């Protein structure tokens, strides 16, 4: 942020501190995001942040390579679905089930990502639109599986059976936060470091900044593109794995789409200006905004959609201030 960039948030803080009504709202917000008995809400926030972080990193990998992958939702859902399938049906010991499910999730998400790029390269359906459209069949397929062949009939819901207890990702005692956060944080760290310190990261970045340049320098741009989309989809799939083996312990129809995780991931990356180390911060901020807005609503009756409005205005404000977060798309 520039120096001017701090003025708006600071002014907002001052306003909140001075007006009693606003202060109550702010306290409700803070409690909703961080408070609660045994800091329960903080753990909830982290649990949400973990999934958002995974999705944001998935988006980052593709965007860094200049590939506008809006298909995170489908990749996330297919990853989750693959994980659930393995989790329910693989007759293996717990740790092996979890590992196989993780592998299946990353492959499923990654292949779906590559499909979007193949549509672009092979059939000229622009990636932006193709990846977006691929979300719908993926989500509906998952919905069908969860509603029919894989349904846990007794539960009365459109959801699969539960993952066997031994294979689940453990939870931190007394919280809903599971060990999946180790996975997403590790992936984020790897992605941030690889961006700077590996040849692969360098090539992806050059391709994103200047595709003609990368080609003219003899970088394997075709392969790089597919690798980037595979990685992007695989990270989304991995995030789906953590949701199924951690948070929900099964695949529940709509559990990954209704909260708009994929879109929030994109927005987090845009707001972070595509600077890798800022992305985890942005993901955390969005998790705080979401859980905090829920608390604000419970305490002060302010609709939690106000958080969404604030986010949208922030995006528009950033876009209008000429700091285009999209590489090579700025003025």
């Amino acid at each position: 942020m520039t120096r001017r960039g701090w003025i708006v948030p600071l002014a907002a803080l001052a306003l909140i501190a001075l007006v009693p009504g606003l202060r109550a709202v702010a306290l409700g917000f803070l409690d909703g995001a961080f408070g609660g008995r045994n800091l329960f809400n903080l753990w909830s926030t982290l649990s949400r942040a973990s999934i958002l972080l995974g999705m944001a990193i998935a988006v980052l990998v593709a965007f860094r390579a200049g590939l506008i992958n809006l298909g995170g939702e489908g990749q996330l859902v297919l990853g989750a679905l693959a994980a659930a399938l393995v989790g329910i049906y693989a007759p293996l010991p717990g740790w092996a089930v979890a590992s196989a499910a993780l592998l299946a999730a990353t492959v499923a998400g990654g292949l779906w990502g590559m499909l979007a790029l193949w549509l672009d390269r092979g059939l000229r359906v622009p990636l932006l639109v193709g990846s977006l459209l691929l979300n719908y069949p993926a989500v509906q397929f998952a919905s069908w599986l969860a509603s029919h062949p894989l349904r846990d009939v007794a539960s009365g819901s459109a959801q699969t059976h539960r993952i066997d207890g031994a294979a689940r990702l453990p939870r931190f005692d007394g919280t809903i936060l599971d060990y999946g956060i180790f996975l997403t944080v590790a992936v984020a760290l790897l992605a941030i470091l690889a961006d700077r310190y590996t040849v692969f990261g360098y090539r992806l970045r050059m391709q994103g900044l200047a595709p003609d340049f990368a080609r003219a320098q003899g970088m394997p741009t075709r392969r790089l593109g597919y690798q980037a989309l595979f990685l992007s989809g695989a990270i989304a799939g991995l995030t789906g794995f953590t949701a199924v083996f951690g948070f929900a312990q099964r695949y529940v129809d709509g559990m990954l789409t209704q909260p708009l995780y994929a879109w929030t991931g994109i927005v987090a990356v845009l707001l972070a200006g595509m600077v890798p180390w800022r992305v985890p911060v942005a993901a955390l901020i969005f998790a705080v905004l979401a859980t905090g807005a829920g608390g604000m609503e419970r305490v002060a009756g302010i609709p939690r959609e106000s958080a969404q409005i604030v986010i949208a205005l922030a995006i528009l404000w950033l876009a209008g201030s000429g700091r285009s977060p999209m590489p090579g798309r700025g003025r």
Partner: protein
Amino acid sequence: QDRTFYYVSPDPIGLNPFLQMGEAGIRAAADAHDAGAVVIESDTPQSRLENVSAAANDGADIVVVLGFEFSDILRDIAPLYPDTQFLIVDQCIWDDRPDNISCAVFREHESAFLMGAVAGLASQADKVAVVSAIDIPFLHRYTDAFAAGARHVAPDTQSEVRWVGGQNPFADPVRAKEQALALAAGGADVIFSATAGGDFGVFEAAQEQGFTVTTVDVNHCPAAPGRILDGTLKRVDEVIGTSIDRILAGERSFVATYGLAEGGMGAISLLPDAELAESGCLVADRPEIVAQVRDLAAQIVDGSLTVADPMAAD
């Protein structure tokens, strides 16, 4: 007020009468016990989890949740808050239920069967139909029992079902209306609308196409004058009140089932004559149908007629 009751809805309450009854029930119970009432609306799986947790965290004495969406959540959350009592309405955790969870469930198929009978008797075309939200076992309690009821009184009756589906199956009047229009075009002249928030769309279709409707949960008749025959009544509000009474009386981990016999399920045509006359429903002017329905209801209550539970069948 030293006690607080919380109500966490699975979806935005909006105009969903079922969820509205939950709110009415918690407020009535709170009044009766001089307690505070807090209503929290959820919209996603994650927010359901957060809201239930927040309610327990806030020190709720009783947390009431409505709908099957909460099973997993309560199974995880309830053990963390032993001082809070949880009540799931419309759903239960059958195995290894934690001590502080009680359930109140309904036999919706009994009332749906009666609606099928009403439709079977009223249909001139011998064609009836159901529009329901989404193809899940729970909703087959409505769709299957309705078809069974229609055939019970008029064996030649054809019955068809359509699902609303879409991104928002429990609150999508647009799609509900399209399905109803299609069913009407196919010749159905009585349509059972079990779409929760989509019912309004079915009523619009009925007004345009001239078919009649049977409804669920509450009396919708005034909303579509001259088009609604009859409706089931699901006394969610009363059941919440009764269940809270039992919890406060010290009962733990109980499962209460409500059907026609217990008065938790009902139908407008089963109301006392005076109330029925006031209801605005078409069935009030069809005494011969009312008589048959009441007869069937009596058989169900005394056990001489059993309505198969589609959820148990699977």
